[in-house]
């Protein structure tokens, strides 16, 4: 696609982010009026900021890609990402705010008074943060590759450098304004092109076979295969081939492919006729883990429940979401904020499925080229074309970069905060900078080394780890007075640790596809969350003598509204 508009758009987003971050506070809050200066962040502004920070590359690009490849089953992703806040609202938001904790390790210390549990929670925050940063960087790389053809590590490096520089230089002082700005930017960047795309679809006669199985080409289409793949055909298919198919090379010959499996070498061009069904592709390059999507097809029910549990319960343990609740002035405001977040995120998530469905109609070959995540970026050019399509494409690209920047900066700040406080030896501004660099260096190195993990899948894994370690800690910590430090530590280690190992095994491609074990490891939440809860409860019950003194007072503080607290302590 034409990059002459997209690159300025991306640059504009980066510059605007840095400027709002550095000067937003100065412009809006320099005053001699105390009344203005001491007004706290209202629930609506805070909710917008949380949404801006939360809507990541997985939401912006990943969901549309999944819907494109696998159809409406994937709508559970946006539902799960949103419903997580419902659980947060019901069980966690207000008590978490009243606990006075800024980060999750703070919460562990406030509730259990144990340095060991605090450090363990810190380790998991870093783990979850890194797992979540990885797909952000990959998404950035993908976006830049689609826009300009740059090597796929470049986008990740750009985001990493921009985020590290702004965070380390203290440029995120007015982070609430930055993130709120990013939310509206992202919403606009999806909403405006979506309106135009839907209008085009209407004028096209509103074709409705989006979710027909299998998807088919609406016009003659040339597809360039970037990685060698295996095509699985249920019935014979005729294509025009330039390149190597099944070890034989062709130049523009028309082939009649028989039913069965066919090996296509990289760099081959396939021309499909109008109305031809889109064949199912399977990566055979050997360097990619079997996507979780495949285990989904084997055990759809199990995978769906695993996804639901991970996203519903994982949201409360995301480090960059938790720190934002500190900004709410009191517990009731924290609840109101969460309700507003539900509305804002719900509105946003109506859009990616639209792109996914349109992608199935107008760009079905993305399943072959291996970049379904690029659907959102390519659609405006594909459907509208011309200068208008280029401009809309540039808008979407800018929005995508806003998604990477906001989520990555929020995560980097959270991870760097934990690294500075609990891992690096002494405190101070310089150490925070060191922490920032470290927080970003690890996922950047991983993303350059790894590549190729589907964006939404990687985020799903981060959710699973968070759901099996922090959800038990938060829910039991807030609602169960007999929780003990050894119980909390054991639960986090067993639940979160097993989820982490399952994640590692999945990424390493063990135990290969087809095995029942593979589905279990690719969607760990369904067994690791109950395991975490059970371990935490059993070990706590077994160590009744270790219930921290003052638990009753701590829980009273978590649950009593602030107005009453004054009278209790007086």
């Amino acid at each position, binding site marked *: 696609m034409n990059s002459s508009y997209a690159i300025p758009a991306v640059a504009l987003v980066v510059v605007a982010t840095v400027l709002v971050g550095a000067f937003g*506070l*100065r412009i809006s*809050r*320099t*005053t*001699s*009026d*105390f*009344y203005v*200066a*001491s*007004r*706290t*962040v209202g629930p609506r502004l805070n909710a917008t900021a949380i949404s801006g920070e939360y809507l990541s590359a997985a939401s912006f690009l990943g969901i549309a890609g999944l819907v494109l490849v696998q159809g409406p089953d994937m709508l559970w992703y946006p539902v799960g990402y949103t419903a997580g806040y419902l659980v947060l609202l019901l069980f966690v938001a207000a008590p978490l705010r009243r606990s*006075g*904790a800024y*980060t999750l390790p*703070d919460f562990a*210390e*406030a509730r259990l008074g144990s340095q060991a549990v605090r450090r363990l929670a810190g*380790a998991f925050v870093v*783990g979850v943060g890194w*797992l979540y940063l990885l797909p952000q960087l990959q998404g950035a790389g993908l976006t830049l590759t689609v826009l300009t053809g740059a090597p796929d590590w470049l986008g990740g490096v750009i985001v990493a450098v921009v985020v590290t520089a702004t965070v380390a230089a203290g440029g995120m*002082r*007015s*982070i609430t304004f930055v993130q709120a700005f990013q939310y509206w930017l992202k919403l606009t960047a999806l909403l405006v092109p979506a309106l135009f795309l839907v209008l085009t679809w209407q004028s096209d006669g509103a074709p409705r076979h989006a979710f027909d199985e299998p998807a088919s080409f609406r016009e003659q289409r040339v597809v360039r295969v970037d990685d060698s793949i295996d095509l699985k055909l249920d019935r014979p298919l005729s294509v025009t081939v330039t390149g190597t198919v099944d070890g034989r090379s062709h130049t523009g010959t028309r082939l009649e492919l028989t039913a069965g499996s066919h090996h296509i070498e990289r760099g081959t061009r396939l021309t499909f006729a109008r109305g031809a069904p889109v064949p199912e592709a399977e990566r055979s390059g*050997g*360097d*990619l*883990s079997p996507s979780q999507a495949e285990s989904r097809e084997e055990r759809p029910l199990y995978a769906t429940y695993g996804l639901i549990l991970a996203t519903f319960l994982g949201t409360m343990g995301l480090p960059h979401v938790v720190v934002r609740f*500190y*900004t*709410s*002035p*009191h517990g009731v405001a924290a609840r109101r904020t969460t309700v507003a977040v539900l509305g804002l995120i719900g509105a946003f998530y109506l859009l990616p499925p639209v792109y996914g469905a349109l992608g199935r109609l107008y760009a079905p070959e993305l399943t072959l080229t291996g970049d379904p995540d690029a659907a959102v970026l390519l659609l405006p050019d594909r459907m509208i074309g011309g200068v208008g399509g280029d401009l809309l494409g540039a808008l979407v690209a800018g929005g995508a970069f806003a998604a990477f920047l906001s989520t990555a900066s929020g995560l980097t*700040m959270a991870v760097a*905060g934990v690294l*500075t*406080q609990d891992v690096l030896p*002494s405190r*101070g501004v310089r150490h*925070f900078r060191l922490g920032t660099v470290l927080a970003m260096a690890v996922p950047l190195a*991983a993303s350059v*080394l*790894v590549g190729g*993990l589907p964006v939404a899948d990687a985020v799903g894994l981060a959710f699973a780890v968070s759901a099996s370690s922090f959800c038990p800690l938060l829910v039991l910590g807030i609602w169960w007075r007999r929780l003990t430090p050894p119980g909390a530590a054991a639960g986090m280690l067993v639940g979160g640790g097993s989820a*982490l*190992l399952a*994640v*590692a*095994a*999945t*990424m*390493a*491609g063990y135990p290969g596809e087809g095995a029942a074990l593979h589905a279990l490891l690719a969607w760990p939440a369904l067994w690791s969350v109950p395991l975490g809860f059970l371990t935490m409860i059993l070990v706590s019950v077994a160590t009744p003598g270790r219930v921290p003194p003052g638990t009753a007072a701590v829980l009273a503080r978590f649950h009593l509204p*602030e107005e009453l*607290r*004054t009278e209790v*302590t*007086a």
Partner: protein
Amino acid sequence: MSGFLAGLCVAVLPVLALGVWLGRRTARAKSLAGLGTPVEHATFETLHTASLAAPPLRAGLTEETARKSARKLRSLLGTDALCLTDREQVLVWDGDGAHHRTEIMDRLAGPLETGRGEAFRLTCDRLDCSVRWAVVAPLTVDDRVHGALVACAPRESAVLVRAAGEVARWVSVQLELADLDQSRTRLIEAEIKALRAQISPHFIFNSLAVIASFVRTDPERARELLLEFADFTRYSFRRHGDFTTLAEELHAIDHYLALVRARFGDRLSVTLQIAPEVLPVTLPFLCLQPLVENAVKHGLEGKAPSSGKCHIQITAQDAGAEALVVIEDDGAGMDPGLLRRILAREVSPSGGIGLSNVDDRLRQVYGDDYGLVIETAAAAGMKITVRLPKYQPGVHSAGRLTGE
């Protein structure tokens, strides 16, 4: 291949963490081995064990601290069982023969009364019971018996009696230190209370005088000022809670500045730059207002009443896990040497104990890393920086955040 690398990276992380943890745990013990003669080595071992048992005891004698230190104390004495008691009950029993708990408590009445050590035979009908003999050494702080250390052994041993006495004395010293810590905390609390009662009397007289001067000429203004005065004094005399929120403290500063402005008029101008994210931060009660009062005093000091103007800038920034509050004036400044002596309490400053008191309280609450940072020179104004952690265990605001 790259997928495998990714998995490897994730799998290596917990292993690394475990390695670091194990390394830390074993490092100290290992570094002692191979140092000096066996006798010296034994001394090191003993001192090391003693130093491990000390930190929990520094928090006083409770079930929790006794449990944490008992195992170390037992390995120090090398007995089969060791128990720590307070005046009423056994706090912890480490080792065999826990069924002797009640018997020990019955026999302790005497030693706890007199404060003298004792050794006695235990009666036991269990044949396999390994503890037959108990040595009692009382734990005393300032000649008051707080509890006892009881070491149990299979047979009578003069060495054990002596050793138990020494260990009990060492534990007593730790408890005395704990006592000292407590009195220091109480002292600081008393100081906070003292500062609270001590909004400077001058300020009260001056405010009332200013209000009086407006009563005839501008009754409406006088009424407003009187209300500001009431709000400020209500906040300052508040009795409950040692902590407040930044928002509340800023409100109090606002009331204070309204009264000061009424007195000095145009000579005083104030600019604020407050990041809304840090308003919920909890901080010690009345710890910024004295700094502002100080800035006003220094800003207007030595300037002619008619011409001299003073500008005060108050900034609160969000800095990760901390909030950064800066109070800056463009007034007379101060000689850094003099300031250092004031903060060290060698010289008593002219107006109250503001700065050094705030400094002490911040260090007491947040640790020595969080004292005031003051940049000043004669005739160069003064810039005071306060770092406030967003979360600190034990720091909870009693107040309620108002506002939107």
